[in-house]
């Protein structure tokens, strides 16, 4: 996917005037937040679990090489194969090579953000292989030829009428006059269309929520069961995973799983949690003929040992998106690449460069809600600030902004001068604003005054009034002495 993060401000403007999008976003906000809050309230050990999970991931990241090699060894022992891929191009080529070798015509896909990251669908299509998304949300946006706007609810930016339109336009074999009004009917239609695709597919691709080192397994959680059909019915199951998905043991997986669904959707557990270990064995009644794990780096190993290492604890639950006031104002597409919201604002610059994605870590009020709900306790605002520091060092932030900041800092670092300058400025603004108490326009603050009034200062600085008060007290004191 071609990033448009550099055009964030334009994207934002378009998102804010899109009435349908705003309607969809309005519906999203209440659901996720309330359900998570209830799920957390029902689990007294939630805080303790957060600490435990953070500890597990921190330990794993400190010994990442060891756990990845252990994982590979155990995958191999069970008849599977691990492919180490440094770049999206390597990952795409590896997938293609497997598909070509098996003569694959169609590929079913469970939900995978890594496939989005490496832009796999476009690549497969260009190579003559048809990818079919089987997660309902992913399926809808595939029909609409657009990227996901949310990492667990890819079609959350749509209202149901748009989904009905997409189905009518694509499912042309069905009666065009059929009723498509409620979610249930649309689900049933998607299910019957997809059922045929599952049966016809040659290769199934899924993501992974976890890779378990001790067993060589991959784990996916879904609410639709589509991942299971994707991976068990085909000649090969390809798992696309970035390397930080590894955890040491099954026990560790269970610990983090207790946080994942609660943080994501407010469920205690997702409907399906599937642990895949190797290809079908002789005695198994079903399962894929081959089992491949594509381990993608794409910039992650470069985050190790830096101030961004903590980001690699992320389990993609989307709690930070669901609680972000900026995300809920503009939606996911405005961020301009695969990962939106606070986690994207930290991760995206790491993966595609801060030159392209510099807006994202700046577009935060640092309200801190993301960090407060992050099950892995990732200090997201702190890391966004680190990006701002790098941008500032490299003079990437807009020049007028840097100059303004520099001018302000020049005064703020010189208290005597600052007091004189602010006393004067406050006087002038105080007099100018006296009559109405506020300004409807102000030079240099057009962004604010276009839509808001600027309350006028009272007219004197506290410092000057306080100095007067001290002088008066002093005089009174002298009077009494006399």
């Amino acid at each position: 996917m071609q990033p448009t993060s550099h055009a964030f401000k334009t994207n934002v403007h378009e998102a804010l005037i899109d009435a349908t999008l705003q309607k969809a976003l309005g519906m999203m906000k209440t659901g996720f937040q309330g359900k998570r809050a209830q799920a957390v309230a029902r689990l007294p050990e939630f805080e303790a679990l957060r600490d435990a999970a953070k500890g597990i991931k921190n330990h794993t990241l400190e010994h990442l090489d060891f756990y990845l090699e252990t994982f590979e060894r155990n995958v191999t022992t069970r008849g599977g194969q691990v492919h180490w891929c440094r770049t999206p191009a390597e990952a795409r080529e590896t997938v293609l090579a497997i598909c070509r070798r098996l003569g694959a015509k169609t590929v079913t896909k469970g939900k995978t953000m890594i496939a989005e990251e490496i832009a796999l669908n476009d690549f497969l299509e260009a190579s003559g292989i048809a990818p079919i998304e089987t997660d309902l949300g992913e399926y809808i946006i595939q029909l609409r030829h657009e990227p996901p706007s949310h990492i667990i609810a890819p079609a959350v930016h749509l209202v149901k009428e748009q989904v009905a339109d997409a189905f009518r336009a694509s499912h042309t074999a069905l009666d065009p006059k059929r009723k498509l009004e409620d979610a249930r009917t649309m689900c049933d239609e998607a299910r019957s269309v997809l059922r045929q695709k599952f049966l016809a597919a040659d290769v199934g691709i899924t993501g992974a929520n976890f890779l378990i080192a001790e067993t060589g397994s991959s784990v996916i959680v879904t609410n639709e069961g589509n991942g299971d059909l994707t991976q068990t019915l085909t000649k090969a199951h390809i798992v696309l995973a970035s390397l930080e998905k590894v955890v040491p043991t099954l026990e560790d997986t269970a610990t983090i799983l207790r946080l994942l669904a609660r943080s994501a959707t407010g469920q205690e557990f997702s409907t399906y949690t599937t642990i895949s270990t190797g290809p079908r064995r002789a005695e198994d009644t079903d399962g894929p003929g081959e089992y491949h794990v594509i381990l993608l780096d794409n910039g992650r190993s470069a985050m190790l040992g830096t101030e961004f290492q903590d980001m690699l604890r992320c389990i993609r639950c989307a709690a930070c998106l669901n609680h972000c006031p900026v995300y809920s104002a503009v939606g996911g597409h405005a961020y301009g690449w695969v990962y939106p919201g606070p986690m994207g604002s930290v991760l995206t610059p790491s993966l595609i460069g801060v030159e392209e994605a510099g807006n994202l870590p700046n577009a935060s009020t640092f309200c801190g809600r993301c960090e407060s709900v992050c099950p892995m306790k990732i200090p997201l605002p702190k890391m966004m600030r680190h990006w701002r520091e790098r941008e500032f060092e490299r003079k990437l932030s807009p020049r007028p902004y840097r100059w303004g900041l520099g001018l302000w800092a020049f005064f703020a670092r010189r208290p005597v001068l600052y007091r004189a300058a602010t006393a004067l400025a406050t006087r002038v603004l105080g007099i100018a604003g006296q009559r109405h108490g506020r300004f409807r326009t102000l030079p240099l603050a057009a962004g604010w005054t276009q839509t808001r009034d600027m309350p006028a200062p009272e007219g004197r600085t506290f410092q000057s009034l306080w100095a007067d008060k001290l002088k008066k007290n002093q005089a009174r004191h002298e009077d009494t002495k006399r």
Partner: protein
Amino acid sequence: MPSEPCRVGLFVTCLVDLFRPSVGFAAVKLLEQAGCTVEVPRAQTCCGQPAYNSGDKADATALARQVIEAFEGFDYVVAPSGSCAGQLRTHYPLMFADEPQMFQRAQHLAKRTHELVSFLVDVRGMERVDARCEAIVTYHDSCSGLRELGVKAQPRRLLGTVAGLTLKELPGAEICCGFGGTFCIKYPEISDKMVGEKAADIVATGAETVLAGDLGCLLNMAGKLLRQGRPVAARHVAEVLANMTNDVAPIGAPAESG
């Protein structure tokens, strides 16, 4: 009321200094009621957040140094702002991680620094205020105060003792108003969308006045409510607690109406 007298350095905050000195005087009054002697160091300007949050480490560190030096020797440092108090408490020590001596001084300051209302309740044991305000009010929890310092129950507790005041809780009180310091300058459209939703929530409560503990948020919310012509006043919570609502007009209102 508290037993031990103590010496408090008031960190006025740049916005209160420039826009609304009344909040500073309200803070002084409340602190004196709580048995504190209040001093206002002259060498204070700003806590440095605009620089810190813009990635300008050099200026942020220089301003932190300036504050640390200006406020040494007080028993406590108190700010009528969760955001600025949070900067001193949470972020200053982090800025000097590589400078052991400054780190110690920063930590020493951090430990003694408090947001005004939480200081009155948690440290000075204030249980009631001597104030009257015949109004239905609602309260917005400013982000830094809430999430960095745990300011939530304290203002409600003291507001509960203001004669004539009815507090109507604001749905979504913990959601950011969209001010965000430099954010509202850099991304005015998103900021406006956020404050628009906040204003709608405030109006829906039916309150006549919205209160908060941070002037930045208040300027933003007042600015939006004024532009929309809503009959909702905005005030810093300290003005109400210090019984100063008759002395100063609401934020953004012409002085004569006060």
